[in-house]
């Protein structure tokens, strides 16, 4: 467990936060200038705040009121920087093993082979960072942080400098990190996809304050705190993988309702989290027939919120969990939607991107 | 000297004596089993080094001032100081542009100089410069020539200016002038126009061992005398 308490005054910016990060991945979420990097750097010991206290599993990293300030190299924290910061004069192997030279003798050692296999960087071992692509660099940076046997992993927007295909290439490695390696992680991001896929807990920062803290499902379902706006809002459903069909679809079960998704690379029986974007959901009053969409969830409308724009956000209570639907106000009127009205949510299988499904718990064989 | 490599005798001598001293050293080493090391630099520098504990056994500077300085500092072996050599001061010109003059009262002296420079050692610091100024003053030429004097940090640099014909006139030692074919001697300064030029010799405390005494004597001997004379010096001793 990580407990953080910080205060810091800068021209035009005041940081004053306090939060506790339980085991798993805590995503620090917030817009530019919210203070995310400041928090992470203080935890790592790279910047000294005015006052505050950070403790990790009971070990005090600093407590400025008591005059305690541990040097960064004594904190045993693996930091994954946005720009990688690989050592250009060392090979990938040497970069990976760098932290090991300095790890205390008794520290539990991550197995190099295992990490290398997990990150798929075996073929790069003899190369220098200068010749790696952005995505490859970040994978090596992840490995390097892991192999220093840290008690906590920090990651400051590790994907921000990458383009979409490369992001998609790295995200699964962070999932594996969460599920296989089980080192607590503080992960800075301002992308909802990353929150949805990785977060156990989300801490939303705004202007140096904690605006909200909660589980990923809670925070993502709340369009008001999503800094990237309404397009990123969506529901997180907990589902269990029932079976893989021969036509390439996977069948999941959530609260007794079947969901069909393009093949999910997980073992039958695993618990999954499925993110369904509000804008991908169609609502229907009658049970739809003859539609190509395979997922139809009956439910009852809980809430309708309209904004200034043409859209309305409908919360539908289904047996699978709450589903958000973003529809036009015109449709809401035409269908006479109101709280208490029962209706159907229609979701295409193919609308659920692979990046919106992720394993919830550790599966024994990585996909 | 005390290190294993060190020679039996270490001589601190004015750099202008290099050729002659090296010849003498060779003769001396051939005749005896002793070895001699020559440390050649400016007289002032050597004197200061000796005052600060340099491992010199014999000092042979180009002017009496610095010997006086060491004597006052109590660094000389009592009774070992002698004036060993003398020299004469000459007026030289580049071989290529030299006009012959009949003496220091010859007006062609100023023609030869023209708008050019009169090269000589530093007037306050280099012995040849000091003697030169004194001589020109006593000849009544100083006030006319002073504005055109270019001072160098040693006599050889002055000679180089004449040799390269950069300066049309220069004042150097006879011993320097005679060896360089690119310059000609126009006139020799008369004795009495300046203090006699003397190269004093002395042993430095603590002079130990027979080698030092032997070389000290050898410098005043016949072989050394021949060599000094052929290098253009006057030999004073004996």
């Amino acid at each position, binding site marked *: 467990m990580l407990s953080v308490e910080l205060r810091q005054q800068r021209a035009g910016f005041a940081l004053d936060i306090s939060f506790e990060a339980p085991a798993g991945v805590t995503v620090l979420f917030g817009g530019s200038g919210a203070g995310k990097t400041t928090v992470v750097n203080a935890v*790592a010991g790279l910047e000294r705040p005015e006052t505050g206290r950070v403790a990790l599993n009971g070990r005090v990293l600093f407590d400025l009121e008591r005059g305690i300030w541990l040097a960064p*190299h004594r904190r045993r924290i*693996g930091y994954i920087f946005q720009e990688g*910061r690989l*050592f250009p004069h060392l090979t990938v192997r040497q970069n990976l093993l760098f932290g090991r030279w*300095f790890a205390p003798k008794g520290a539990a050692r991550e197995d190099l082979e295992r990490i290398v296999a997990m990150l798929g960087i075996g073929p790069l071992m003899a190369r*220098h960072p200068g010749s790696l692509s952005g995505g490859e660099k970040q994978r090596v940076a992840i490995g390097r942080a892991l192999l220093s046997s840290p008690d906590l992993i920090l990651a400051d927007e590790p994907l921000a400098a990458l383009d979409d295909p490369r992001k998609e290439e790295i995200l699964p490695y962070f999932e594996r990190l969460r599920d296989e390696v089980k080192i607590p992680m503080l992960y800075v991001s301002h992308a909802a996809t990353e929150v949805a896929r990785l977060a156990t807990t989300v801490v939303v920062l705004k202007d140096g304050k904690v605006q909200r803290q909660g589980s990923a499902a809670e925070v993502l379902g709340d369009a008001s705190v999503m800094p990237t706006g309404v397009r990123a809002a969506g529901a997180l459903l907990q589902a269990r993988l029932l079976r893989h069909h021969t036509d390439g679809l996977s069948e999941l079960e959530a609260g007794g309702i079947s969901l069909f998704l393009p093949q999910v690379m997980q073992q039958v029986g695993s618990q999954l989290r499925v993110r369904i974007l509000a804008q991908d959901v169609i609502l229907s009053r009658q049970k739809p027939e003859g539609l190509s969409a395979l997922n139809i969830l009956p439910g009852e409308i809980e809430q309708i919120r309209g904004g200034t724009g043409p859209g309305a956000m409908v919360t539908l209570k289904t047996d699978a969990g709450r589903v958000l639907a973003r529809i036009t106000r015109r449709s809401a009127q035409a269908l006479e939607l109101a709280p208490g009205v029962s209706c159907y949510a229609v979701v295409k299988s193919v609308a659920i991107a692979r990046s919106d499904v992720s394993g919830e718990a550790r599966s024994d064989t990585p996909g | 000297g005390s290190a294993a490599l*060190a020679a039996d005798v270490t001589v601190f001598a004015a*750099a202008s004596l290099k050729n002659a001293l090296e010849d003498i050293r060779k003769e001396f080493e051939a005749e005896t089993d002793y070895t001699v090391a020559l440390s*050649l630099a400016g007289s002032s520098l050597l004197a200061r080094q000796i005052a600060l504990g340099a491992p010199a056994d014999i000092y042979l500077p180009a002017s009496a001032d610095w010997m006086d300085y060491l004597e006052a500092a109590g660094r000389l072996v009592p009774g070992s100081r002698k004036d060993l050599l003398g020299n004469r001061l000459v007026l030289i010109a580049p071989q290529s542009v030299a006009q012959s003059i009949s003496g220091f009262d010859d007006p062609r002296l100023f023609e030869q100089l023209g708008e050019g420079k009169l090269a000589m050692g530093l007037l306050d610091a280099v012995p040849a410069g000091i003697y030169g100024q004194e001589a020109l003053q006593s000849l009544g030429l100083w006030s006319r020539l002073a504005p055109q004097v270019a001072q160098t940090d040693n006599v050889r640099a002055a000679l180089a200016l004449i040799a390269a014909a950069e300066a049309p006139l220069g004042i150097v030692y006879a011993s320097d002038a005679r060896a360089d074919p690119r310059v000609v001697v126009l006139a020799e300064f008369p004795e009495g126009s300046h203090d006699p030029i003397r190269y004093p010799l002395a042993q430095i405390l603590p002079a130990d061992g027979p080698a030092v005494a032997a070389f000290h004597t050898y410098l005043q001997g016949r072989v050394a005398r021949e060599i000094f004379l052929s290098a253009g010096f006057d030999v004073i001793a004996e």
Partner: protein
Amino acid sequence: MNWLGPEEWQAVALSLKVSIWASLLSLPFGIFVAYALARWEFAGKQLLNGLVHLPLILPPVVTGYLLLLAFGTQGALGGFLQQFGIILAFRWTGAALAAAIMGFPLMVRAIRLSIEAVDPKLEQAAATLGANRFWAFATVTLPLILPGVIAGTILAFAKAMGEFGATITFVSNIPGQTQTLPSAIYAFLQVPGGESAALRLVLISVGIAMSALILSELLARRASKRLGGT
């Protein structure tokens, strides 16, 4: 070769010895001072910077004279060192000291500039991986500034090969003991007919220093080619 006498060979050998020792022994100090000037803020930083540059500013004779006053057998530091059997004045060790001091500003400049070009964030990264300041420097910054270190060392070496004023003032000009190439050249230039011998020595000295310089360019280029980006 028989166009050099044994004394001249001695001077060549001594100059090499003096220059190599001077540049290598001053290297750790040079790196330390360069690092301090590049990365730390401290009171007296400008003073240290000035002190380092002093030998560049002072006429070499003055530097040599100050060395003689400080490290001579009568000097405070010289007397202190003598207790440990270290004698500098009128020894080749003194020549090495003089050469080291004269080359120090050049060495520090070169190393300092290359340190300033290394992103301090890389040292931060090393710190998060458990390396303390010393190790972060030794394993990250030092390899990255290798081109600068090479350049600085060779510059100091070249300077040492040519150093004359401070050396002759501090340790005099004793053949086989303290007569370096420049001192020998000087002595030759003081007597009639010495020019051709002086020229020979100049050529040797230039040849050695140039080879070292070219070597350093090649080494530095290879070292910086090995690196690519971050």
